[in-house]
């Protein structure tokens, strides 16, 4: 589904990604771990198409189509979803209106008519129940005054509404207490199927107890320096990142 070949990217002239190779197939869950500043969030933003990051080399393709020249919304229309590490507050736009606009713009791009209002309401009800979101919350301004946990839960709610092909969860566990973590992870697990894929970006192994990855990759200084199964995450939890750094620098 997602193929990344020798991807290099800069921000403000500073090289962050220095040749990433990654292949994610339908039905798989990949975890990307690594110390702070290793380029994890950059990778997530580059896949989602953030303009501030300049791709200087390599390729990103989704289902065989090159996407590195597409705008973020065009990638979203093809099924890419990024759950933000820091969801943006947008005063004056309610969660419901935001979702309605996002879904209908995506449908428009796919040549479909707007979703009928009653279907939309039904979907909103189902998905908000799944994530144990209070309905009152949906008429509030997007992320404005939300707690850290509410913001992250709202991200996964949006993911549930948009049903993406490829979901990238950027530090979704940060700021979550254990109950919220369980709800969020449950949501992600319920959305998983054989046709979609998930990339979980995290610093800690904790989230991976709930969202069990098929593959774990360690990103360090802009490169994937080690890949393995879920046991790699456990090893990292026990031993930290220093041994990886030593291995790389040796």
């Amino acid at each position: 589904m997602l193929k990344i070949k020798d991807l290099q990217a800069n921000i403000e002239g500073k090289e962050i990604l220095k040749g990433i190779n990654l292949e994610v197939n339908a039905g798989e869950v990949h975890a990307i771990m690594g110390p702070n500043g290793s380029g994890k969030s950059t990778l997530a933003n580059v896949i989602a198409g953030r303009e501030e990051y300049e791709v200087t080399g390599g390729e990103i393709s989704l289902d065989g189509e090159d996407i590195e020249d597409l705008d973020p919304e065009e990638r979203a229309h093809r099924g890419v979803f990024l759950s933000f590490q820091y969801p943006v507050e947008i005063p004056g736009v309610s969660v419901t209106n935001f979702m309605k606009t996002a879904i209908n713009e995506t449908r428009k791009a796919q040549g479909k008519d707007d979703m009928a209002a009653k279907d939309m309401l039904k979907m909103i009800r189902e998905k908000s129940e799944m994530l144990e979101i209070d309905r009152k919350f949906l008429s509030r301004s997007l992320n404005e005054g939300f707690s850290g946990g509410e913001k992250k839960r709202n991200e996964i709610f949006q993911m549930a509404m948009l049903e993406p092909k490829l979901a990238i969860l950027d530090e979704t566990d940060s700021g979550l207490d254990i109950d919220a973590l369980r709800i969020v992870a449950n949501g992600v697990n319920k959305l998983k199927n054989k046709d979609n894929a998930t990339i979980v970006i995290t610093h800690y192994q904790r989230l991976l107890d709930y969202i069990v990855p098929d593959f774990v990759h360690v990103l360090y200084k802009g490169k994937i320096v080690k890949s393995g199964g879920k046991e790699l995450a456990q090893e990292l939890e026990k031993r930290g990142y220093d041994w990886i750094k030593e291995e790389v620098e040796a």
Partner: protein
Amino acid sequence: MSFKDHILSSFIALENEVDTSSYVHELRNQAIGEFEKLGVPQRKEEAYKYTSLKALFNKDYCLFPKKETAISYSDIKKYLVHQIDSYRVIFIDGIYSSHLSQTTHDKFDVCLMSSALSNPKYSNVIKEFYNKLAVKDGLVSLNTAFAKEGAYIHIGKNIIVEKPIEIVYFSTGNEAQLMTQPRNLVVVGENSQVQIIERHQSLNDNAVLTNSVSEIFAAKRALVDWYKIQNDRLSASLIDHTFAEQKDNSEVRIHTFSFGGKITRNNLNFYQRGEHCNSVLNGVTILEGKQHVDHSTLVHHTAPNCESFQEYKQIFDERAVGVFNGKVLVDKIAQKINAYQQNNNILISDTATINAKPQLEIFADDVRCSHGCTIGQLDEDAMFYMQARGIPKKEARALLMFAFANSVLETVKIPEIKTRITKLIAMKLGVEIGFDM
């Protein structure tokens, strides 16, 4: 001929057609004298530092257009907010159109100024209120000197006017360059309430300059809710002077939506002359091209325990220019007032300009006055967030701008106006979606 000479000689022509022995004509005589002294405001005057009227006043305007009868309801229908259920006072090239209007004398008066000025029945009201708020200003005096027509609204005590009143000035473009001097008087009695919609609209691209004066008197516990919809063609300019006097517990709200026109200058002057008054002045401005809008506001707190609330949200693209000149004056006696002023601006292009000048003059020592002014761009993080959810750039931009303007839109109490304004904004931003926020 200079503009001033043109005006002075036109005044002699005016005197040939009006009753020169009337009370109002005395006012006209004084006013033309003041105009002769003061002239058109210049940029060297502080109040006009950022708005040059020079380009507007170098034309030979026609001041006395011929009566136009060919305009039919279908020509103007789309500019009316309430197509059925409203009172309407409609003017074509400054002249009252009886067949397009819907006036009333049932319980209260919604009619035309010319009859109020000439009919003895109204002379007490005219003597008590007409030209009592108008300040000494070249253009206000010019209006007083020439004003013959406008809306006259007199609501007695304890009346809630259920239907909004629309005051619309159309210009036909029959004259290559037309200048009009509309004059409105609105007197609202104790415990009464009224909603007013005011609009100036040209029907083709010939030059129009409107120099309008409105006086509003709100008696105790009166409520006046006034909407100014400014979406005229680029050939039209408007200089508006609106004055409001408020007595105890009254509330006057003026909402200004400025999207169109070439040069628009809004002078709003509020005088609080009673305790527990509330004044609301807010607006949304969205400009592009070389449009210029100047909001010059004054709230004069002369009594204790009052409130005033100003909020202007403005978006400027291309080479558009905005001015916000907001003055709050608090007299020594006006203790315990709460004055709020907020002016937020978004500059979309590098060539757009906003001149913001909040002025607070406070002579009382136990008051709450706050003001804030921001100038910024659209939030890049928010843009990416929305795009990442599949909302295209243009729509994302529009959604952000709607959200930005929303706090003002929320104060619109007439649903049809809210819908209309939302549509105008969507059109202005080039999007089809109306966000029902």
